[in-house]
């Protein structure tokens, strides 16, 4: 295991360390980064890049320590080295730095020798890179050869453009025109200010990335041509993208104002400085010559000098030989978010069950969903729940990212079901070379349908939109070739579902209670809103009804309010398998979430909807109202206890015949699980 430590702890040093660690990692070296010396705010800003490597080096078995930034060994680094080498005595130390002169190198060597207790091997980056691409290199530079892109695919252009350039007059217009050139696909790599500008500009369909979204090799992998623009030289991240592309024989066009790369001897093409001429230049001069550019890479001494293998040789590192070449993946990994309940997981399970080879499907899911997924026969690995502490609420995404890295291979299909595409999901898709599919149920509350959120769909090859049962509820959030609408995802034709009469008999035996009437209440687990008052009111009401069994159904892990217990006629049931109970019920009182709503409609279950109206929910009020307008259900407002009690009594006394008739008259769309499965399989097999 190689331990990396940096001489100083500024933002550029953190960046360099993360980049260098990933390079070593991709070359097969086991590498870790000392976690103790970086300021917390710096780590948080780059946490996805650092997370796979950060650890306490003192607690790790090390075979080598490499110090970067050796020209500026700070007190913290010296102290850390002292401690580290006491724990790991005799581990060889290599120190790399950009030394202005021999005095600096000797001074650094003396400090590291004193701190580590042994003479380090010194690597002067000024000698390794005699004509450096940056004025002061914070780490050794070297390009990684990328896997060849699929033959026959449309050429992909990655345009690097700083935010300052995007602010120039007409630049956004020119960029939009470039994106419609048609001869190539376009992705934009920019900084944070550029990203904000492009979101405000609402350039539909344009994939915009920042260095924070994925590692340079991942950004380079998806491109045949890199175009660099802007007034200044590219930063370290973008430089790495350029290096990977050059080493892989792909085209790099230097369109910077000063020819920043070309003037430093980089074998890049000197392209036009403005976007207005870029389309013509690319289609006329670059794209037709891509094979020739690729062919010539083997003849370029510059490229040989800048291959990462040379860095490995300078560090006396031998790239480990893989025991067996890793085959391309073709598994399907479902990653349902868990939102408030388990609806996303339920949908994924239904779709996975319709795959031609369900055994190809695996799951990575949050703890509340694991039981459900396992009960349906799928392998599932756990993710970590979001923390309640708002300052830590994004930390679990780091774990998701790291686990997805470990659990996937290039080529696997990742199916994400959720509203917001987390950074870790996006990064894993980009970096692991996964084929992403987004299952994006609609009926979002208006404030959720932001351009920022929806723009993330460009990460995915397909967006599958399960439709609502009623047309007026199907708002099209986005359009385009990648978006596919499918029928409602609902559990149907399941031979394991018991007949309602059989279910009632089972319940009677289980609870030793007559089941003259069966009411099932499913108002949520207390996370979206506190429904304990509703449950109490219903329990009190149904207590007076002879022979009535009232089941309060909650998900595993949900909070059970004490007021739910102690009733003769009421029982609390923890289960993820609501449908058998609902089908057996005379009446269901429920929220109007996507899955339950459609189960009620498709299984023709008399229901009273009490919509959830929380900030993070879908628009349940609209959904419930659509059923009510058709006479197929009743709807009660969340604060309307009296009306709820009256409605329940009316249904039980007057019968639910009207509701059943209205339900029977409904013409419902063909369910879409099969269609969704087919779309996923098509991506997997192409």
């Amino acid at each position, binding site marked *: 295991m190689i331990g990396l430590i940096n001489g100083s702890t500024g933002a550029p040093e953190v960046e360099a360390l993360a980049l260098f660690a990933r390079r070593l990692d991709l070359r097969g070296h086991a590498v870790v980064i000392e976690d103790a010396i970086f300021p917390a705010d710096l780590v948080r800003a780059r946490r996805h890049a650092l997370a796979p490597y950060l650890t306490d080096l003192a607690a790790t078995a090390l075979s080598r320590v490499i110090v970067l930034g050796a020209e500026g060994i700070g007190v913290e680094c010296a102290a850390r080295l002292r401690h580290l080498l*006491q724990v790991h005595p005799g581990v060889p130390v290599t120190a790399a730095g950009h030394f202005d*002169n021999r005095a*600096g190198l000797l001074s650094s*060597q003396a400090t590291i020798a004193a701190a580590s207790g042994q003479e380090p091997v010194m690597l002067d980056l000024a000698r390794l890179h005699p004509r450096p691409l940056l004025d002061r290199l914070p780490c050794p530079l070297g390009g990684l050869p990328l896997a060849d892109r699929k033959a026959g695919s449309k050429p992909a252009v990655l345009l690097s453009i700083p935010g300052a350039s995007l602010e120039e007059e007409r630049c956004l217009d020119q960029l939009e025109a470039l994106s419609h050139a048609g001869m190539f696909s376009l992705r934009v790599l920019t900084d944070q200010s550029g990203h904000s500008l492009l979101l405000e500009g609402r350039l539909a369909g344009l994939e915009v990335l920042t260095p924070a979204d994925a590692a340079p090799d991942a950004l380079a992998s998806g491109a045949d041509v890199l175009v660099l623009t802007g007034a200044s030289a590219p930063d370290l991240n973008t430089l790495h993208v350029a290096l990977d592309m050059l080493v892989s024989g792909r085209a790099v066009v230097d369109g910077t104002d000063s020819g920043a790369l070309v003037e430093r001897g980089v074998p890049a093409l000197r392209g036009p400085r403005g976007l207005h001429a870029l389309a013509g230049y690319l289609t006329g001069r670059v794209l037709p010559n891509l094979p020739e550019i690729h062919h010539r890479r083997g003849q370029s001494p510059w490229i040989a000098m800048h291959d990462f293998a040379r860095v490995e040789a300078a560090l006396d590192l031998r790239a480990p030989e893989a025991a067996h070449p890793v085959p391309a993946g073709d598994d399907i990994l479902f990653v349902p978010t868990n939102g408030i309940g388990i609806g996303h997981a339920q949908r994924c399970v239904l779709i996975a069950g319709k795959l031609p080879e369900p055994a190809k499907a695996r799951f990575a899911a949050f703890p509340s969903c694991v039981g459900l997924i396992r009960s349906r026969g799928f392998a599932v690995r756990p993710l970590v729940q979001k923390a309640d502490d708002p300052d830590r609420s994004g930390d679990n995404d780091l774990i998701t990212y790291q686990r997805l890295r470990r659990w996937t291979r290039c080529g696997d299909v990742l199916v994400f079901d959720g509203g917001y595409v987390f950074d870790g999901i996006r990064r894993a898709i980009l970096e692991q070379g996964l084929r992403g599919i987004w299952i994006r149920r609609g009926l979002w509350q208006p404030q959720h349908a932001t351009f920022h959120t929806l723009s993330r769909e460009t990460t995915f090859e397909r967006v599958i939109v399960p439709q609502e049962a009623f047309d007026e509820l199907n708002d099209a959030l986005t359009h385009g070739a990648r978006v596919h609408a499918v029928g409602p995802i609902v559990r149907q034709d399941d031979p394991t579902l018991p007949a309602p009469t059989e279910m009632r008999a089972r319940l009677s035996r289980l609870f030793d209670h007559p089941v003259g009437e069966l009411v099932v209440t499913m108002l949520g687990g207390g996370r979206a809103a506190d429904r304990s008052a509703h449950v109490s009111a219903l329990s009190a009401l149904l207590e007076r009804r002879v022979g009535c069994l009232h089941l309060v159904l909650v998900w595993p892990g949900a909070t059970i309010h004490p007021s739910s217990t102690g009733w003769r006629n009421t029982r609390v049931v923890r289960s993820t398998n609501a449908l058998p109970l609902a089908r057996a019920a005379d009446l269901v009182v429920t929220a109007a979430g996507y899955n339950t709503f459609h189960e009620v409609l498709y299984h023709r279950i008399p229901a009273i909807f009490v919509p959830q109206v929380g900030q993070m929910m879908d628009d349940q009020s609209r959904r419930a109202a659509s059923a009510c307008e058709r006479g197929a259900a009743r709807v009660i407002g969340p604060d309307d206890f009296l009306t709820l009690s009256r409605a329940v009594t009316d249904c039980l006394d007057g019968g639910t015949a009207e509701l059943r008739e209205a339900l029977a008259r409904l013409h419902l769309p063909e369910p879409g699980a099969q269609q969704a499965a087919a779309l996923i399989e098509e991506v997997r097999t192409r």
Partner: protein
Amino acid sequence: MTSRLGRVAVHDAGAGLFGGKDVATPLAETLQDLALPLLCGEAVATGEVAILHNPTFLKLAAALPVRIVARDLIVVAHETFLRPGGVEAFDVDHCLGLIRGASLTLRRRIAPVSPSNRAAVLAWQTSSREGGHWEVTQSDWFNICNAPMQPPTAAPRDRRGRLSRPGPEKFPGPSDLDFCFPATAEVNVILGGDLLVAESRRRRHWTVLPFRSISVEDFFGMIDFFVYFTAPSWRESFGRVIAEAIMAGKVVITDPATAAPFGAGVIAARPSEVDNVIAGLLADPASYARTVRRAQADLARYAPDRFATRFHEIVGFRTGVAA
């Protein structure tokens, strides 16, 4: 001292290593006492003998700003040329090369400041191209130790301490520090322990003080034993801090190479032996006092009058009138 032996001119070499900082107070006061100007910006420094102290100030310089014209040029090697293991401590060839390039002299010599320092100079000379252009003085140019000797305490206690600049080269490894300053000692004072603070490795039984946070006098007042070890990759050229501890009336325990210039009054030991050494002296306070007085007597070899004799040996002629 030198001003009593002949006419002296003091030049500021002006290489800018210290970024324009003021002249050190002791030097400024001495020049004022002697009514000697500090010559700044002079293009040429001339004299019978030119003495240039500590060539490391040129390590980042492109040239020596002052040209030297003298019969004899002596460069005093205050900092060791080679670290233990033979690695250059600084770019010696560069520094001496600049001096040689800026000087017109009949004789060009390096004056070591101690036996270990001499060994490093000689080792450097055999492996360096620049070394062939320099001689090494027969005698060492030692540091003058001229301060009142404080008497040893009659009732020593297990109060230990060390004093140094805060760089990692000045500190032994963590386990050796634990040997030197155990929990069983009554007091453990570490002055200049900035590194230990950064390392988050302060023991509860240590009093760790940042460099220059208290006066040296106050520090010595807190201890009876000066326990001093450095990183294995480092060695003191002379060890002025050892001399200061002796003059302050403390028993000094250090490694053999550092102890060598100071005679048998400074106890040479390994860190793991420190406890036993101290225990023995605490059990025999008279022995404690004898050890301090022996070291103080041996320190007389670095007295000012001895320096005058040594100066004549090195320079090779008598100037002025002997005191």
